[in-house]
């Protein structure tokens, strides 16, 4: 018998319950069990993950999920979470796993920055009346443009590196087919295509059903090289080399064999039922010059027609690493902060490794400017972007665009129960169980994602207008329009912003 005290209490109001057994059928965690002989629904609190699926599906509102407030006696140092972790480890001898992003109470710098607005000397712009431009091109830009004159007409002599065009500076971050369901992948792909933006395959390869969304797809090449072949490289609009992930810097990935279904095995190009292990390092990249070789290789394989992204987790020395990545020839650099999500990671890594994206972004943007190479690369910020305001602040700090993934999952139904690694997602997102994946209709998923990004677009335009800006590039790196609140002098300096009142 487990000595772990349940985190949640499932309360069923017997007056309301009509014994329809929807809860029994809906809960993949088997919290509810129906005993026919006694016409009784028994509840097992210890199995509840707090996803609220039953509560939302119950037709008579008979169910309420509450936090078990009396979990253990209040203790500032030994939290209930800590006690339960110790108990679980003592019982199993394994690492505790978790899903999604770091949920600990570290400082959020987004919440310590406020935006400027125009008053009197500079008119705000009304986005309903005036054009407001969000279009963004990602890719390496030259330092200068050379022109030639032909028949008295100026034309381009400089040939630009490959670029991808985004109608909004928001993209969907990497989530593999395997970590999420095919319906979830298709929702993302279809929404990206409707929005004129991009989604990312993660390391899951590209399912044949999704090839038609290729021009809105960023194909990832990660340490396991799953699903990478010439067709894959040819189908995607851009290629991303994944070095690290914000939720688990320095850690690889592991998709257990039982999740490697026939379709996943075909897509990832591995035998079905075998574990899909992404090593912690790329075994052909043991230093920066090796990264340069892989970038060159991918460019060669894609005929120099596609921008190559390199994604790293935000760690202490990110600025110098980013500079090296630019010099290694990357067209776009993606920085993933410690709040970024994951399908599965050891809790100890997720909760203790990496640095905030705000800080990493600020120092990388400044470092690349100090080296006069900022033009040679686009910067994408990822990892815990929750709202259009976070996105705007990221761009004001210096990002060209942002990636969102946790917010995208929430749009499709996720309630952040953080149990993605169990593969039993009640919302049909992080699971391959056909009973569960059916719960997400890709058309509805796509519509919700489209709505989410469209509403952020409206909000970004409103914010830009209030600042008297009408093109997103005039926000990029415009740190004077940010002010810190409650920051120390050192924090302000690192973020490169003034404190409110200055």
């Amino acid at each position: 018998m487990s000595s772990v005290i349940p985190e949640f209490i499932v309360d069923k109001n017997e007056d309301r319950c009509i014994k329809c057994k929807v809860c029994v059928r809906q809960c993949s965690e088997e919290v509810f069990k129906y005993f026919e002989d006694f016409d009784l629904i028994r509840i097992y609190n210890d199995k509840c993950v707090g996803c609220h699926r039953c509560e939302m599906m119950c037709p008579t509102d008979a169910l309420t999920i509450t936090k078990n407030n009396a979990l253990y006696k209040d203790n500032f140092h030994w939290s209930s979470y800590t006690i339960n972790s110790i108990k679980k480890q003592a019982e199993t001898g394994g690492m505790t796993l978790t899903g999604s992003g770091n949920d600990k109470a570290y400082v959020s710098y987004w919440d310590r920055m406020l935006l400027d607005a125009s008053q009197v000397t500079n008119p705000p712009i009304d986005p309903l009346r005036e054009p407001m431009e969000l279009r963004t091109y990602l890719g390496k830009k030259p330092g200068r443009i050379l022109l030639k004159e032909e028949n008295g007409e100026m034309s381009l002599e400089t040939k630009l590196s490959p670029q991808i065009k985004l109608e909004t500076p928001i993209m969907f971050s990497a989530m593999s087919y395997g970590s999420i369901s095919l319906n979830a992948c298709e929702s993302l792909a279809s929404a990206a295509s409707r929005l004129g933006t991009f989604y990312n395959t993660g390391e899951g390869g590209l399912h044949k059903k999704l090839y038609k969304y290729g021009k809105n797809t960023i194909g990832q090449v990660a340490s396991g090289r799953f699903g990478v072949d010439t067709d894959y490289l040819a189908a995607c609009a851009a290629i991303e080399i994944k070095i690290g992930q914000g939720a688990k810097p320095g850690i690889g990935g592991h998709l257990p064999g039982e999740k490697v279904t026939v379709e996943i095995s075909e897509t990832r190009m591995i035998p079905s039922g075998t574990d899909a292990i992404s090593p912690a390092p790329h075994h052909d990249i043991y230093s920066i010059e090796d990264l340069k070789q892989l970038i060159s290789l991918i460019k060669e394989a894609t005929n120099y027609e596609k921008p190559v992204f390199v994604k790293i987790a935000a760690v202490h020395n990110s600025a110098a690493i980013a500079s090296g990545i630019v010099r290694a020839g990357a067209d776009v650099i993606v920085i993933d902060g410690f709040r970024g999500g994951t399908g599965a990671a050891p809790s100890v890594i997720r909760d203790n490794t990496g640095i905030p994206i705000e800080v990493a972004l600020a120092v990388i943007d400044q470092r690349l400017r100090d080296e006069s190479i900022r033009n040679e690369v686009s910067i994408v910020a990822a990892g815990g972007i929750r709202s259009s305001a976070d996105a705007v602040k990221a761009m004001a700090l210096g990002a060209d665009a942002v990636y969102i993934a946790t917010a995208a999952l929430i749009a499709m139904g996720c309630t952040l129960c953080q149990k993605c690694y169990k593969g039993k997602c009640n919302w049909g997102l992080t699971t391959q169980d056909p009973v569960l994946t059916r719960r997400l209709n890709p058309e509805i998923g796509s519509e919700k994602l489209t709505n989410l990004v469209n509403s952020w677009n409206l909000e970004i335009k409103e914010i830009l207008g209030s600042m008297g800006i009408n093109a997103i590039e005039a926000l990029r790196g415009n740190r004077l329009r940010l002010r810190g609140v409650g920051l120390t002098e050192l924090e302000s300096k690192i973020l490169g912003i003034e404190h409110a009142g200055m």
Partner: protein
Amino acid sequence: MNKFPREKDISGCSIFGLINTDGEKVSGSVITEAISVLHDRANGLGGGFSGYGIYPDYPDDYALHLFFDSVKAKEETEELINKHFLIEYDEKIRTDNSINLPNKPLLWRYFVKNRNILSKDSEREETFKAVMDINNNIEGAYVISSGKNMGVFKGVGYPEDISRFYRLEDYKGYIWTAHGRFPTNTPGWWGGAHPFGLLDWTIVHNGEISSYDTNRRYLEMYGYKCNLVTDTEVITYLFDFLVRKNNLTLSLASKILASPMWVDIDRMEEKKRELLKALRMTYAGALLTGPFSVILGFENGIMGLGDRLKLRPLLVGKSENTVYMSSEECAVRKICPDLDSVYRPKGGEPAIALLDGKYV
């Protein structure tokens, strides 16, 4: 000295410029008469002028106009000038001290030659570096203008008082620009007045740039130090960067600073579309947003440019061999009641008038 060095300059203004396209010179009193009509658009905290062709005795020397907060700053600056240049002649800028203006700095001008014989491009680059050096490294010294056969005269006061203070009626030029300023946050600082000058570029500017820090941080990658915290400084540097350093035409530079909308670029024929797309993508850090109209002066012409949403006024008038540009028509009519033609350029559309009679 600027008492509020950390705040970005914000101000509303009036601007005026004229060019005699045949190169005939007129006295500074002409433009003074025009800008004084716009008295109410300034608040007495900034006014200034630039004149071209005003130093016929030293046409081939860089004329450096300087503001000094102290004698020490002047000595240090001269040491630095001597390092970069040969000083042909220097003097205190002549002023009429019966005009009572506050916080007057020490005003000095130097006519200098490069120590080595250089091509025009590298000569200008050397001068540019010297100007950056003085502005950044010497406390209390500000190079106000640094072109050949031209100069900037500015200070804290209404433009007509500034003109009388500098005795502009004694100077004759073929190009004049003028500015009346309504600053809100750098009162009493002479360096904050317009025009802003670098080499032969001068800018008078009406408006506020909401993209300021994006532009500033972009320019700093290429050796420009923006320590006068004004929008105008940034616009001047952007023109220098795009036209002098990147060899773009004025008209293409204006398509970068006040770029056409993407929807309009999408509709252009292919060659032009690809050109403007590449310029906008590459020089994204140079896009100016927010309201502005500017008059850019340079050795052989003036250019007027307004923001792409047309949030600030700009008028171009022509009469015989003179082209006028102003934020207000009344200022033009005051000195030239009968104009041959008048038009108001669209937002982002440059109006260029050149010395050899060309008028675009």
